């Protein structure tokens, strides 16, 4: 039964890659929400949004096809379209030089403004990126806005903060965790509506302009040309304008864009990107090295501080479990089991977002706390096992010699337990080094996140992935070596 269902699933997903000629399979991220793509509140199995209607219009123009939606994570649209998961990616996909060199990209069909949102009390002081020296500016990772912020870091000294979604930046802005948010005007306006029009204001002067495009596999340039023809037609016959008006995103700049495109398609394509001139791959890799190095430093720093905290927490818990009275043993056992029994990701969210009403922790501190408290539970079990592995007779021998319990722990039990604990501790530290990648969900840009940003920008995981793996190995291998040497050093015979 299960097998047949599984087979059905596999067949269905295979079907997505080889659809009937009457269907246009397109991919987008419904998590991105309205007005782009969102689950229809009336029928959650369906999606709605202006991108949904643009996709339907394109499908209709391609010989009367129907559009079928495939859910894909926004940052993976490029990779998925090359893999053949769907034919057309369409979900607030930005027009960038890299995307144009790597994939078959359609005409721009919407012009957006990168706008700054700030708290109302800052509106008089902040007018652009230049006024944000030393301030924390949030945006969605792997976007033009993020590139703008990274470029501005060098010139204005602002601090870019990358998020995995476009909702939390505005919440954190209102709460004072960040000082500004730079994102597409559609996203900013939506966030303001959701907050009932309070908490922040959107600055009128845009920081930059950008365009939404559709993305197809590089090999699909012929179909892309057909899609472009449909888009041009939809601009001429007013159907695109109707769609944008229906979703309340129409403004005069769209009309100007349509005019430019109808006048000269080539010019429009050339004018598309907002994030600087096209770069070749090698200089791009070199350009990313400093940020990768910085991210590796963040990974190492988060890991070392978390491990230090984990060791302290672990020692306290293990002492409680081995030496404490019954109630303390019970309490520490509950802590260890709760922490080990729930996902680290959940703990990160609870500490960063869940506690925000009580105490507003900076992201880095929240990351170290969550990782340290989580790994502390695992360390506690290692230390408890190690303490209990020291032969009881040695402890009794120490007692007959007149040592106090504390002295026995310090002079006899502890040093031997440390030897037993060293190998599993090293394993844990290497695991922590890799688990630290999770902290990117609370805006700490560490090695894996930086690699993902890099990969999205160059449109390939091959070079960034290999570089990232090398850096992780360079950090973990010496550690394993050190542990082996220490173990040998402490081995008595």
């Amino acid at each position, binding site marked *: 039964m299960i097998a047949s269902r599984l087979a059905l699933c596999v067949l269905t997903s295979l079907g997505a890659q080889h659809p009937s000629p009457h269907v246009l399979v397109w991919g987008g991220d419904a998590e991105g929400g309205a007005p782009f793509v969102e689950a229809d509140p009336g029928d959650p199995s369906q999606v709605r949004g202006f991108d949904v209607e643009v996709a339907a219009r394109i499908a209709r123009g391609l010989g009367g096809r129907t559009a079928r939606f495939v859910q894909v994570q926004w940052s993976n649209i490029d990779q998925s379209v090359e893999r053949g998961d769907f034919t057309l990616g369409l979900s607030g996909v930005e027009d960038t030089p890299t995307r144009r060199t790597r994939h078959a990209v359609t005409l721009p069909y919407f012009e957006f403004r990168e706008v700054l949102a700030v708290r109302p009390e800052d509106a008089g002081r902040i007018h652009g990126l230049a006024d944000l020296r030393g301030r924390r500016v949030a945006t969605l990772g792997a976007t033009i806005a993020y590139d703008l912020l990274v470029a501005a870091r060098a010139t204005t000294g602002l601090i870019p903060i990358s998020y995995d979604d476009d909702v939390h930046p505005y919440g954190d802005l209102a709460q004072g965790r960040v000082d500004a948010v730079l994102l597409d005007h559609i996203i900013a306006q939506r966030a303001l509506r959701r907050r009932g029009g309070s908490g922040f204001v959107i600055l009128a002067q845009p920081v930059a302009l950008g365009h939404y495009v559709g993305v197809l596999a590089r090999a699909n340039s012929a179909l892309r040309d057909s899609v472009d023809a449909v888009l041009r037609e939809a601009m001429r016959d007013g159907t695109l304008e109707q769609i944008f008006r229906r979703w309340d995103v129409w403004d005069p700049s769209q009309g100007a864009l349509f005019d430019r495109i109808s006048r000269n398609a080539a010019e429009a394509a050339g004018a598309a990107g907002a994030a600087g001139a096209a770069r070749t791959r090698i200089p791009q890799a070199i350009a990313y090295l400093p940020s990768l190095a910085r991210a590796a430093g963040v990974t190492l720093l988060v890991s070392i501080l978390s491990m230090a905290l984990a060791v302290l927490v672990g020692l306290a818990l293990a002492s409680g479990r081995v030496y404490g009275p019954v109630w303390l043993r019970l309490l520490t056992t509950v802590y260890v089991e709760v922490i080990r029994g729930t996902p680290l990701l959940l703990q990160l969210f609870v500490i960063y977002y869940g506690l925000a009403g009580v105490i507003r922790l900076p992201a880095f501190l929240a990351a170290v706390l969550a990782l340290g408290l989580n790994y502390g539970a695992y360390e506690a079990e290692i230390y408890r096992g190690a303490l209990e592995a020291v032969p009881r007779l040695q402890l009794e021998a120490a007692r*007959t*010699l007149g*040592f106090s*319990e504390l002295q026995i722990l310090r002079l*006899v039990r502890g040093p031997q337990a440390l030897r037993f604990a060293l190998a599993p501790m090293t394993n844990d530290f290497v695991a922590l080094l890799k688990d630290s990648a999770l902290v990117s969900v609370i805006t700490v840009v560490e090695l894996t996140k930086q690699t993902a940003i890099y990969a999205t920008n160059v449109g390939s995981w091959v070079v960034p992935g290999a570089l990232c793996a090398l850096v992780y190995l360079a950090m973990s291998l010496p550690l394993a070596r050190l542990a082996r040497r220490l173990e040998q050093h*402490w081995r008595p015979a």
Partner: protein
Amino acid sequence: MTALLVIDQLSVRYDSRDVLRGLSLEVARGEIVALMGPSGVGKSTALRAVAALQAFDDGQIVVDGFALAPGPVPPESRLVPLRRRVGLVFQAHALFEHLTALDNVTLALRHVLGRTRDEAEAVATELLASLDVGSRASAWPGQLSGGEAQRVAIARALAPDPHLLLMDEPTAALDPARRSALGATLRRLCEQGRGLLVATHDAEFARAHADRVVSLTA
């Protein structure tokens, strides 16, 4: 002759089973007393009770004026006088695996008696030499033979200079030549004014080297 150790009607029960019932004995200064009996008869239990590692249910133990009463083992803080008076050599030696032979002996000297490292090492070196393991001072416990480990364990127990030395099955791992050497060593310790209580099931050793034999029967 003053009794260094008085055990009076000592009884220990586990789960209402008598492990030891009504044991009485005395050990005087300069005397070796062998506590004989087959395995499982409670010899080790008696030694552990004297060393306050083990609670007992009835009777009394007095070591050089320090009395232990029935009931739970008192906290270590109240046992300090006892710890100074009694040394125990375990059958399994129980040397500290992370320390050299020398440091096994110096540890209590430095951290319990507050001697400097130099003083402690001088005492330990002399003790190890007197027990014929001076050349093994820098060896780790895992590198020692059974006989060597036992003598290091004796040196460790003697380091705080206890008046009463308890030994559990000291001949278990020794060949005949080593056994008689051990007997001579114990005699020497006795002559320095200590009392020795040796739990053993080795009748020959007890006859040859003990001043008195107390037999426990099952």
